[in-house]
């Protein structure tokens, strides 16, 4: 017993020493990109904990923190997001001291207005799913196209018809769907930390209380879309039906249509039927959330 305790103590002190050494190394100047990669890759857990700690502190200071697993996961998710950006962009900052550069990057993110989409309901499983989906759609075209499926239950053909795309763009839509089904969806679920049990529960809720489920989803997706649509190009605002009509008939603004209509429920209602040359004459689309790809 005493031997085991001693072994644990030794192991802990060894870990502490390693950790200190890594932190010291991060505080030293690195001169090349390769050296940066090497030093940083050895310190990923330390940097992740550091970013998570900063995010927790930010949430506490802004009155958005609660001591529960949802908030812990939220802080971890954003810590990981900052670390990913640091890994890629930090290389171009050499020579630098990685630890200080990382701190400055996180501080810069937190100094922005609304650095992330926070809403208490978005921390519950349904909210996490929607937040993760829309956040991913901002950086991934696969997720963006898949958003049409998750919001309205459409397939690639429907998306092409609704957005009025031409042949070349259509091929790309099929590819986006395929990649999303193969890996994109799972990756997004992993990123937001949804467990199998939570996914199963979402499926149950959808089956048992379909209307309430969709109504909750619509309310939450509006919150998420309003936040993440800010990452669209500045020149992609909401349009009137006649303006959408001009865009569809004259065939310009392909990117505009794809990006904006996926991220705006209201504009989807406004522009409904314009891209299909009259083939989509049914009722305007309502949110019918699909959990699976």
């Amino acid at each position, binding site marked *: 017993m005493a031997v085991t305790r001693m072994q644990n103590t030794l192991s802990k002190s060894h870990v502490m020493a390693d950790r200190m050494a890594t932190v010291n190394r991060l505080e030293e100047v690195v001169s090349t990109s390769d050296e940066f990669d090497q030093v940083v*890759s050895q310190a*990923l*857990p330390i940097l*992740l904990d550091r970013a998570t700690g900063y995010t927790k502190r930010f949430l506490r200071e802004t009155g958005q923190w609660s001591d529960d*697993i949802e908030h*812990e*996961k939220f802080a*971890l*998710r954003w810590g*990981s997001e900052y*670390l*990913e*950006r640091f*890994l*890629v*962009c*930090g290389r*171009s*900052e050499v020579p630098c001291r990685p630890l200080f550069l990382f701190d400055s990057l996180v501080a*810069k993110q937190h100094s922005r207005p609304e650095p992330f989409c926070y809403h208490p309901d978005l921390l519950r499983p349904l909210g996490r799913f929607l937040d993760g989906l829309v956040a*991913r759609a*901002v*950086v*991934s*075209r*696969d*997720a963006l196209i898949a958003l049409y499926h998750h919001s309205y239950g459409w397939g690639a053909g429907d998306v092409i018809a609704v957005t009025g795309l031409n042949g070349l763009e259509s091929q790309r839509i099929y*590819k*986006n769907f395929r*990649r999303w089904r193969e*890996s*994109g969806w799972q*990756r997004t679920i*992993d*990123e937001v*930390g949804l*467990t199998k049990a939570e996914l199963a529960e979402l499926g149950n809720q959808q089956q048992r209380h379909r209307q309430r489920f969709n109504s909750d989803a619509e309310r939450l997706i509006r919150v998420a879309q309003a936040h993440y649509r*800010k*990452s*669209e*190009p*500045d020149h992609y605002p909401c349009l009137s039906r006649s303006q959408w009509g001009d865009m569809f008939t004259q065939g310009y603004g392909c990117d505009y249509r794809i*990006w904006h209509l996926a991220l705006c429920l209201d504009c989807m209602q406004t522009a409904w039927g314009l891209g299909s040359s009259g083939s989509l004459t049914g009722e305007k689309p309502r949110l019918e959330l699909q959990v699976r790809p």
Partner: protein
Amino acid sequence: MGHEEELDAYRSQLLESLNSRPTIRGVSDPIQVYVNERRVGELEGAGIGATLQVQCVDHIETIQLRAEDGTLLGGLTAPECGYRTDRVRISADTVELSVHNMAQGGTLSALFTPAPSFWSRAWKSIADVTDRVVARRPAPAYGMRMVAFTQALLAIAVVGLVTDRITTGRTLVRTPSPVVQTATLSPAPVADMARFEQQLDELARMQAKVDDALGSQQKGVVQLQQAMVKLSSTQESFESNVLTVREEIEKRLETVGRETDRQTRQMASRGRVEQEQLEAAIQNLTADNHRLSKEVVSLEEYNQALKSKLQTAVASASKAVDPSPERLLKMADSLQATQQMPFLFWVTFSDGTSQESIDKWVHEMQGHKGAVSEGWQEVRILPPAVPADRFLEQVRGEKIVKAARISQ
């Protein structure tokens, strides 16, 4: 699973994904370009030398390159002010990023260069060697082209021969067993091998030179790119200035035109009013003139009537008094003339009368002083209303007058 365990599992999962960061970008998939975490466009993944130029109103802070699935492929942190270039390797492809932050906004230039294929590399090497050879020999342009063409043909022929040898060699390798192959090796192939080795060494040297040349060329391309970005930003600012000036001129012209128009309208309306007033005045004058001419006519008629009446009266009077009407007329005329002639008389004043008093008296008489002769002062006045004798009596009654008489 407890919360701690769930959290640990989640943390491990995140760390694992950070460590691996798999990229499943297809060969022809576009690369999404983000500036300050906003999507600004994409680079065609299949295109050779696909470029993207972005001009931002705000400062550029970060640039991110992402695959279609959202994987962060590369990025760059922009300097607060000035240039920064970086080459991001994505598998074998390369994206040259060049960012320039100015006092007002920033510009980004991204150039996608796909990995060159074996044949394109070989062809480039040959072309490079040809260029060098041609460059060393100064000759007329036509001659240079001919030499280059001949050398290119020669190079293709050499490459063809080498390929043929390799293919033949492979065929030979495949058919007999290794033992037989060793046995059948003759001195001739050994010599060939030595030659090949020599050629390979030469090729390696050439390759190194080509790499150097490519490196310098890429540097040149980057510099050119920067210059292009600068030029395009200057041009854009110039165009915007021109546009602003043009709009300003149009606005001013419009304002001036509007003002001129307003003034013209005002003047026209004022002119119309004045014209109307003038017309009215002319009409009034015409009417007055007409009325006056009528009055003149009527007055003339009346005058004529009076004249005829006078003549009649004179005639009747002459019939009654004097049978000669001519004489009567003459008398009337002389009477009229007498009435018009000034009345002249002479006065002497009492002693001690001042000149002032004399002048005052003459002025009261409405008369004029004439000559002075032997103490007598000539005075001319309008014919008095009373007879001359009586008038003289009145004059003599004046305080300052001593004596008065008609004749000198």
